[in-house]
């Protein structure tokens, strides 16, 4: 009896590592990320559904991002058109500006710029909010009141970013094209109908599908990274700052990797 007690005590006192503390922690972290994603897909389909919170988060992510997205998208459209003109002018091909702008914006810049802005504004905000809730025990308070904090905080926010980033991407694309149109109209006196005719001629259905798929992926990534970093935040106020910061950095890093991978897949489909 005494021996078994000693054995149990020893088990709780010393912890053995499979490889080393650091390597074990790395694999534990990989497993935790995997489990966090798997839990999202497990919880998203089963009741209770937090519709009201999803709508609230959609408003936070979507509507509240509109001013920043509008200004940034518009300026990008103008600047990109302005910077592209001299190169095309060298070949006397300024008439191709609308096509160039549309391909660049629809295929890459629209989704990427929207995602980067959202990672900065929304991702950091989610990371900081959940991190702060973790360190002030609000997440524990939810849990002890028999409310699933993962469902209320994580599922709702990830759904909101996954739904709203594609919508914001469409909006950014439109605003950027408008910015581009204003610049083209000012310099080449092109009408809006001619401009948009050329825009739609230059892009294909595959471009729109690829852009949509990318923005859904970007939205999911931003929400998931922000929630993960916030949900597992620790070390008090320092941890909250770290959660906000690493949410942005990690999300942006993943966005560029995803952009690269999706671009390769789309190019392969196109046969390039």
């Amino acid at each position, binding site marked *: 009896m005494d021996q078994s007690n000693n054995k*149990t*005590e020893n*088990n*709780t*006192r*010393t*912890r053995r590592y499979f490889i080393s503390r650091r390597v074990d922690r790395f694999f534990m972290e990989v497993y935790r990320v995997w489990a966090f994603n798997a839990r999202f897909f497990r919880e998203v389909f089963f009741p*209770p559904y937090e519709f009201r919170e999803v709508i609230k988060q959609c408003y936070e992510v979507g509507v509240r991002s509109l001013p920043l997205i509008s200004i940034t998208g518009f300026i990008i459209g103008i600047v990109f058109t302005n910077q592209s003109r001299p190169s095309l002018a060298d070949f006397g091909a300024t008439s191709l500006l609308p096509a160039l702008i549309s391909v660049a914006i629809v295929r890459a810049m629209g989704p990427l710029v929207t995602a980067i802005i959202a990672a900065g504004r929304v991702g950091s905000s989610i990371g900081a*909010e959940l991190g*702060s*809730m973790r360190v*002030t*025990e*609000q997440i*524990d*308070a939810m*849990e*002890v*009141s*028999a*409310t699933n904090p993962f469902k209320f905080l994580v599922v709702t926010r990830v759904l909101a970013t996954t739904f709203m980033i594609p919508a914001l991407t469409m909006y950014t694309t439109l605003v950027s094209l408008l910015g581009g149109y204003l610049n083209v109209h000012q310099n080449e006196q092109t009408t809006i109908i001619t401009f948009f005719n050329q825009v739609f001629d230059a892009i294909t259905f595959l471009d729109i599908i690829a852009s949509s798929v990318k923005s859904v992926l970007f939205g999911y990534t931003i929400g998931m990274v922000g929630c993960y970093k916030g949900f597992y935040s620790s070390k008090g106020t320092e941890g909250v700052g770290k959660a906000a910061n690493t949410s942005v950095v990690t999300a942006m890093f993943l966005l560029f990797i995803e952009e690269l991978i999706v671009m390769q897949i789309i190019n392969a489909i196109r046969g390039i």
Partner: protein
Amino acid sequence: MTEKELNPNIDRSKKVIFIRGLKKAFDDNVILRGVDLDLYKGENLVVLGRSGTGKSVLIKIISGLLRADAGEVNVLGEDVCCITPREMDTLRLKIGFSFQNSALYDSMTVKENLEFPLERHSKDMTRADRDKLIDVVLEAVGLRSAINQMPSELSGGQRKRIGIARTLILRPDIMLYDEPTAGLDPITCIEINNLINEVQRRFNTSSIIITHDLTCARAVGDRLVMLLDGEFKREGTFEEVFATDDERVQAFYNYNFSE
């Protein structure tokens, strides 16, 4: 220092919490080394101990926020180590947890904080019934006027009261208070102590109060236990717990009253 009167409502034949051989460690740091504890129906049990001795860990294990490494933790007839998450949620509805820093949802008003558990667990309740219940618990903690305020607009003592109101709204059988008087001025401490006793009388709860404030311990505790080296070394009334030559216990007593 006010001493608590004898509580006639304690039912010594009915244990609501029963813990045997509870062990918990974080990496190499062993916190609980075999804790045994009984909480009787209608009783206020105070757990004393220095910071970092595992008092909060104990109630987090009872509420299922942490898992025990070894031992039996039986709450209202359910072994919390072995039940399913769904069963745990059902059990949690019978346990109220008042956090050290209140843990109010800071993006919600006081009313929304109180509505939050009701919306999820009392779906058949009408809005009028909900409002009435919110009114009852706010009245019980003496803060009806704060209903539309944000947590950031409340003082520390008011936040504690609202935190207690939020746990009371689901009418729990057991209340767990984590450092209820920490960081509060002496007058507010007395108000919180009175509130804990009032909650016990009015809602017929059994409570575990975690504290290192001896004034609070004496005012609210029907029975006290002292956690030393990961085990309960002393148990009994306030006088019984401190009637010892153990230097650590005496140091705890002397430090509290020399502050």
